[in-house]
Structure formats: structure tokens, C-alpha cells
């Protein structure tokens, strides 16, 4: 089994619900985004267009971050999900430099509350345990939700159903059929990292 994600740029409205749902599910502190949407424009008036490019960890089959990790903290779990073992991570940041998709970040300081004058909320106190200083931040495809049979938070919340998630190795899955029939593109294929996140449309 290999989990994969197809993002249909023709359906994405740039609302950012994916990024906000990710924050809610993973309690990432201020300044940390495992899921982003780049908003930009192309063309000139009156033919200009507003564009959206959602990004996250590509969960590559040949992850450059894994090769760069000197301690083996970066590993690939069942389903092909690229993970970080916090116990083994020494916070060197090599993986951050190695990732060509800028999908990783190193926590250089303690997690701050969103409303500093009021201290951490109970939610933040619980969630920030996984975001300590010196640890690496990245998307996990919400592996804890997958273990419960649920979809990643960004997929479940997308109001325009621009994200299709599933098993790439199952030819009957929607995600596999989309790839077979509509040939979505991966980012930076020339690097041969073999991402498992693909993009449809958007030209």
C-alpha cells in the first residue's frame, strides 16, 4: 500500500481550509504550516487570473530528506508516509535543506501561544508536546487518523473536494484511477524523488 494525494487545481478556491484544518488537527504553533496554499496572479488586466497552489510534504518514494538525515530519524512508515522519529532527531536541520519542496521546518524556539497575553490554551498545552524546540515539523498525512480509518484533515475538510486521497497501489481507488486517466503532474519530477502528491490542471 502507498498512500497518495491528487490535488485538483481546477477545483481549489484558495480558501485555506486545508491549512487551517491541519492546524486544528496537529496543533501546530504560530509560524508553522504543514499545509500551505500559495496565492498569486498571472497575466495582465483584463485577462489576469488568480491562482492557487496548495503544498505540503510530497511523501516521496525516494525522499531526499531521508537520505540527508544522519541519525535515521526520518523514516518511511507503512503506506509510504515519510515520518520523523522525535526521539532520534537531533535537530541538525539537514533534512530541511535537502527537501526540494520546502516542506520541512526546524523549530528554533519554544512553541508560542496564539494569544500570548493569555498564555497557552488547554488545547495548545496538549498539542505543543509534539512541537518542542529543536524538533522537525512536517506533514504526516495525518497518520494517526489513517490508523483510525479516517482521511487526513486537509482532505476531509476541503469544501470543493479538490483533494482526493487513497491507495496508489489499488487500481480501483479513486486516486489511482485519476492518475491513470488524467495523468496529473508531480512537482520537480526531474529530481527523481517520486512524490506521492500530484496536481491536476492549473495551466
Amino acid at each position, binding site marked *: 500500500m502507498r498512500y497518495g494525494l491528487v490535488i485538483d487545481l481546477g477545483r481549489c*478556491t*484558495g*480558501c*485555506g*481550509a486545508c*491549512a*487551517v484544518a491541519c*492546524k*486544528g488537527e496537529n496543533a501546530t504553533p*504560530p509560524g508553522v*504550516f504543514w499545509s*500551505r*496554499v*500559495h*496565492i*498569486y*496572479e498571472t*497575466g*495582465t*488586466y483584463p485577462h*489576469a487570473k*488568480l491562482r492557487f497552489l496548495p503544498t505540503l510534504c510530497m511523501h516521496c518514494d525516494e525522499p531526499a530528506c531521508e537520505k540527508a538525515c544522519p541519525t535515521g530519524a526520518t523514516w518511511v512508515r507503512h503506506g509510504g508516509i515519510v515520518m520523523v522519529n522525535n526521539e532520534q532527531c537531533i535537530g541538525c536541520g539537514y533534512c530541511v535543506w535537502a527537501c526540494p519542496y520546502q516542506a520541512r521546518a526546524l523549530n528554533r524556539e519554544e512553541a508560542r501561544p*496564539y*494569544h500570548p497575553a493569555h498564555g497557552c490554551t*488547554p488545547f495548545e498545552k496538549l498539542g505543543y508536546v509534539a512541537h518542542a524546540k529543536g524538533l522537525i515539523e512536517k506533514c504526516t498525512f495525518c497518520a494517526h487518523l489513517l490508523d483510525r480509518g479516517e482521511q487526513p484533515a486537509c482532505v476531509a475538510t476541503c469544501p470543493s473536494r479538490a483533494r482526493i486521497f487513497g491507495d496508489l497501489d489499488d487500481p480501483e481507488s479513486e486516486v489511482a484511477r485519476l492518475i491513470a486517466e488524467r495523468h496529473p503532474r508531480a512537482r520537480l519530477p526531474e529530481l527523481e524523488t517520486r512524490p506521492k502528491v500530484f496536481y491536476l490542471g492549473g495551466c
Partner: protein
Amino acid sequence: MGALDVPGSYLASDAGPSLSPGPDGVVEPKAEAAPRPWAFPPSIDLKEYYPHRHTSPFLAWKAILDPEKYGIDYGIDVLITYAANPIMASVNPDEAIAAFRKIPFIATIPLVFDEMSQFADVLLPESVIVERYALIEFGHHVVQAADEPLLRVKGVLVQKPAIEPLWTTRQADDIYIELAERVGFLYGRGGLNDHLNRELGLSDNYALELDRRYTTPEIMDRILRDHFDEEHSLDYFDEHAVYPRMLQRKEAYNFYHHPWGATRYPIYFERLLFFGRQLRENLASAGLETIPGQDPEDVWQHYQALPRWCGRPDDHAAPEFDMLAVNWSTPQWRMSAGDQVGNAWVQEFVEVNDPYEYRILINTRTAREKGLADGDEVEVQAWHGGRTRGRLKTTELVFPEALGFPSNHGFKSRQRNPVTRKGPHYNELLTGDEGTIDPVSAGIDRAPRVKVTKVERRRGSDRRP
């Protein structure tokens, strides 16, 4: 012309028999199209003078400040607001503040510390969303969707508290019920329970008893069992968040209830003409020539049976007011209600990812012609209305004569979440003054003529003036 309210087409109005014929076979006006009944002295929001208006809090502030002008012979002793912010979410904020100063006692049920909280004598804070109940029935209102089955979905969404309230907050409904009991208008005919029975459409079997105090979940349970069925009582929503029910086509489409020939639709607005005549007679009976504050020459031109071009209130603005300020909802912030702009996660997402939010958008070529550049701090002043400041974002995405203001930002209260104070406040450019609003609907002009000027700063100064 297209097709509406016939099988296979959009539903243009409520599902079900919503557009029913009147005695003459012509569809009866509903909602704002049906004028409010006349009364004098008028209500404080002057709806009797603007009988087709949707909502007009800015008229209430005028009436409170100058009751004599509007024929009002009573004062306002108490104002209670719930999760509303008429200072920042409407127009003429200075008049709102002046009116509040005249009201002896103000209580507010706020979601957050906002401008209304600042003016309140008493705060009755409501629990946050995960601590409170909610019931939203859907399928009753205008639905425009591409999928025909979606048009026929009618159902209910129920939210139950996930946790106990952390602080001494309460459900707003329970606050109102307790206030009604303490003040003495909860029970009996004409009391709050009686009112709720009518407003909630509760049938006799499920109607609230008039001599008993109910809690919010008890009332919700009655609504669910009455409007849906016993199986979908409040208990059902321990395991479910939503109960969608697919209407039969015959239930959904008005056409089935009133097929060909049963209802005729007006082509002209003759009813508006007649309603205008009636309003004129009503005003005359109170000794008034026109709606107070409105030009008598102009008002009745708007109550016509045929469409006509009225022009805009700022058509004759000075030449330097050469741009139109426009505003729109963004996917993140569809409205300012519920303090959506204060959501720290959404705010951070926008700040990091969206280069347009919190900015004033100007066409690249227009900016060049005016000697303005991306990032410039500018002041935007309306011909009518006020002024606001913000930073420019040059873009190819806006019309060359328009200045774009995404969402609603620039809130004022220092007690507020600081993230909500960023950016320009579009509403400051608008006005609800008579002579600029539509005399029929009391609608405000939403694209005012403005001029834009660069804010020059003294060297070394980084303070906002």
C-alpha cells in the same frame, strides 16, 4: 428569460409552496416585498417610513439622536445586543456611538471583546462554540445550486456541547430566558414562551407550556420532534451532526403546488406604486409631507411601476473623486459576524499566504498614472461618507477605476484581539444619511466615489498618525 421554480430548473425561492397567488391570482409579495404595517409614532428603526427595508440600524441611531425630527415621542431606556457589532459592521459609526451615549443602560452578550463590549454597562458572555448548542434548519431559504437533488435537500444540523464551559459563560438562549423570567415576561399569553411557539412554528402537540421555564436543549428537542419526527429527536444527534431529508419533487417545486395558470407573475411594479401612495397617505395622516430627512421631490419618484434610472448619490462628486471603492467577501472571511476575522489560525494563514488581504488593491497601470507604488500607505476619502487608510497592493486583477477592499478589517477597539485591528476599514467610506440611501429599501450605496492620496511621512517617523 430562463426557467425558475419549474422542475429541472433552479429553485429561485424557498422550497415548497412559497409563491402563492393572492385574491386576484397574482403572486403575493413576501418578505421585504410586502410592506410593514403603518404605525405612528414609528419604531425606533423607522421601518414604518421605509416599509420595504431589510435592516437599517443606522436609522435607529438617527432617531435616538433626534427623536423630534422623526416624530418619536419615547426614549430608549435599555439596549441589549447579542453577538452584534452595529458600530463596525454597519455605517455611520460615530452616530451609533453618540446614540449609545444617550441610552441609560446597555447590556451585550458578546462572543469576544469588541466595540459593543466597550460601550456595555454589563457583559453577559456567551460560551464558545464547542461549549454550546446550536440548531440550524436548512432548505427553507433561497438555494441556487447546480445539482437538482441538492435543491431538494431539507434537513437540520445540530451541534451539542463537546465540553463543559471553562468559565462562567452561558448559552445566549438561556440568558434571554432567564432575563424574561426575572423581568416578568416569560409566562402566559404574550410571554416569551408564547412568542417562541409562534416564531418556531411549534404545533399544539409540541408547543411550549406557557407556565413552565425551558432550557435550550428542551426547546431544541421539541423543534426536532415537531419539524421532523420522533426518531430524530435531540438524542439522535448524540451520534449524528446532520439529518438531511430529500424532499419529493412535488414538495420542493412551487410549480407542483401552483401549476400553469394557477399563479400569475407581475411584469410591472404596479404594487410599488400603490404601496407608495399608501405610504404618502399614511405620512399625511401624521402631518408629514415626506419621509423625514428625505427630499419630497425625490422620494415618490422611487415608488414607480416602471424601472427608471435614478443615478447615484455621488454622480456629481468633484473630479478628483475619480475611483469607486468596492468590497467583497473572501473565502476566509465571508462576513464579520461571529468575529471570523479574529480567528487566529485563519488570520495567520491569510497573513502568510495571501498577498491581497489587509491591502487596498489598485490596478497596476492606475497606480503608475497616479504616482503610487505597491506598499505605499494611502488615505482613501469618500465624497459622502468618511475616510480610511491602508497599504496599496498593485495588481492586474482589478478594474482600472476601482479600489478593492477585500473583507472587513481595521476594527477599532483597543480591547480587541489585535489581529482584527490590521488593515483598512471599508465601512468608513459608506454612509446611511438620507439623500444617499434608497428611499424604498433604505439600501446604502455600496460603491462610493473616492479619491486616493499617498500618506507622506516625515523622515524617521514610523508612527501612525
